[in-house]
């Protein structure tokens, strides 16, 4: 680009900027969606935050108790244990799902025909609801009649759900099995937008497949990695169907992740005030983590990975 400073060019740039300002959408574009979202998602959440300051059993009127529930939460040992298990599962899930999803997504972005067929098959687990997947895996993991029975020699023991390590591994397995297809879809769409010219230039420079992957593909997938990891984070903090159906938080309370504990507090002990504290805490954690992720990666600057081309 040749930079020539002349008054004509400056005037053109200003005129251009003024013209461009016209074509930008204002906040009014977002209002209908915001209102809808506010009524059906934000308002209930505000209700939950309010409930965390009360004591309520769901039947009579809530009693305002101020920060009592919160101080109870902060001194509750069970809550810290739950947080720890949640973190362990989260890290496990991300560590397993991210690499596999990226590799699969990039692979299925290729245009070979067999890849299209196989990608469709790989997508199938997502079509099953979480409950259905958990029910299916519960059958498969039966120590006497399921897969562990046939692989007992390989695995050492068929009693997979009977220990904390085994239960955590099974939960990671089932969750990954179900959600890797979703993340693969994200990466597939993104990988397809990486311009072929980049790869061609690198090939001319003599870069091999691995180098191209690490130096071209991954950086171009930066935004998608942020999106995908945010989903995994959020998923780990809000979903617990698989835990409920496979281990019910057991053995003992070894896999009682925070969202599960929240559900139990609300719908088993009917202590909605306390459950609302856990829910608000989860919301804070998840939002905080996504904010941090977005900030660190510059995602909210809305820049394209293709800038400068």
């Amino acid at each position, binding site marked *: 680009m040749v930079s020539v400073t002349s008054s004509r060019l400056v005037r053109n740039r200003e005129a251009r900027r003024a*013209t*461009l300002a016209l*074509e*930008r*959408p204002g*906040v009014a*574009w*977002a209002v209908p*969606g*915001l209102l*809808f*979202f506010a*009524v*059906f*998602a934000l*308002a*209930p*959440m505000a*209700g939950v935050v309010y409930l965390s300051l009360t004591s309520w059993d769901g039947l009579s009127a809530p009693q305002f108790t101020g920060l009592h529930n919160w101080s109870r939460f902060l001194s509750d040992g069970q809550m810290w244990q739950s947080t720890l298990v949640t973190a362990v599962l989260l890290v496990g899930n991300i560590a397993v799902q991210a690499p596999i999803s990226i*590799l699969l997504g990039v*692979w299925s972005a*290729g*245009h070979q025909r067999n890849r*299209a067929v*196989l990608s469709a*098959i790989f997508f199938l*687990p997502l079509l099953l*609801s979480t*409950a*259905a997947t958990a*029910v*299916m895996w519960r*059958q*498969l993991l039966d120590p006497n009649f399921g*897969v562990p029975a046939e692989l007992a020699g390989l695995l050492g023991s068929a009693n997979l759900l009977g220990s904390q390590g085994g239960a955590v591994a099974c939960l990671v397995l089932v969750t990954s*099995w179900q959600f890797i297809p979703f993340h693969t*879809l994200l990466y597939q769409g993104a990988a*397809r*937008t990486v*311009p072929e010219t980049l790869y061609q230039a690198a090939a001319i420079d003599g870069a091999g*497949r691995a180098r191209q992957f690490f130096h071209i593909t991954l950086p171009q997938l930066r935004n998608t990695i942020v*999106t995908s990891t*945010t*989903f995994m984070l*959020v998923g780990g*903090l809000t979903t617990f169907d698989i835990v409920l159906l496979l281990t019910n938080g057991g053995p003992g309370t070894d896999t009682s992740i925070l*969202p599960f504990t*929240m*559900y139990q507090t609300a719908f088993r002990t009917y202590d909605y005030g306390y459950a609302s504290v856990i*829910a608000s805490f*989860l*919301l804070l954690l998840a*939002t905080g983590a*996504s*904010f941090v992720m977005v900030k660190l990666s510059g995602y*909210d600057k*809305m820049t*394209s*990975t*293709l800038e400068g081309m």
Partner: protein
Amino acid sequence: MRSRPNYLAGIATFGWLLIIGVPLYALVNTAVQPQTTYTDRGPVSLPSAVTFDNFVTVVRSGFVGYLWNTALVAAATVAIVLLLAVPISYAVVRGHGWLTRGVFRLFLLGLAIPAQAVIIPLFLIINRLGFYDSLWGIILPTAAFSMPVSVLVISGGMRNISVSLYEAMALDGARPARILLDLVIPLSRSSIATASIFAALQAWNGFLFPLIMTQSDSTKVVTLGLYNFVSEYGANIPALLAAVLMSAVPILLVYLFARRALVAGLMGAGGK
């Protein structure tokens, strides 16, 4: 493209095919066996007896009606989500500075709302609006909860559109609406498709909202209908899994068609 075949990729994908395929095989395998014999052999062996009675049982339980309800819920959810999330994403990506960034952050907040926690206030709101025991009681919250994801994905797709394209259209005197329809939507088709699939799946597989917001048989959706085969102390596993299979087929068809749109819509996404 690549001239040498990628052996590593080949082996890895074969391995993944096994991991995906074996449980799915077990699913189909159990669904085609009678309840009396399905435990005779392991879940991954060949069936000792094959029957399609389970599928008949499922249809007889009113499953087709449930599928129809679920399809309505999914279609309406996707429609609402797209109608609202596309303009929001557009505003977030192309709008003025800090206000629209605030909107984006607001939706990030919404990503993490735990459904089980808000179910009671939400139930009260739906009840007060008069939507209890109607499909709208399911559609509206599901759509609302799918919006953060959709905004995240669609804005991710929209930001890959090169600035020079906007400038070109602006210099032609185009207003934001025209730019949205003629430039942005066509170029972010893949992310819109992804968001649609996600919203559709949320609607298709949702259990909690249908459970709490409906009660009649006429508003039952597929996930509730599965419980026709689950009682307090036992379950008709083959029929249950047959129902699971049947509930997955329609959305599989949608995915297969959406994929074609995905592939077709990926021309020239980006600058020159």
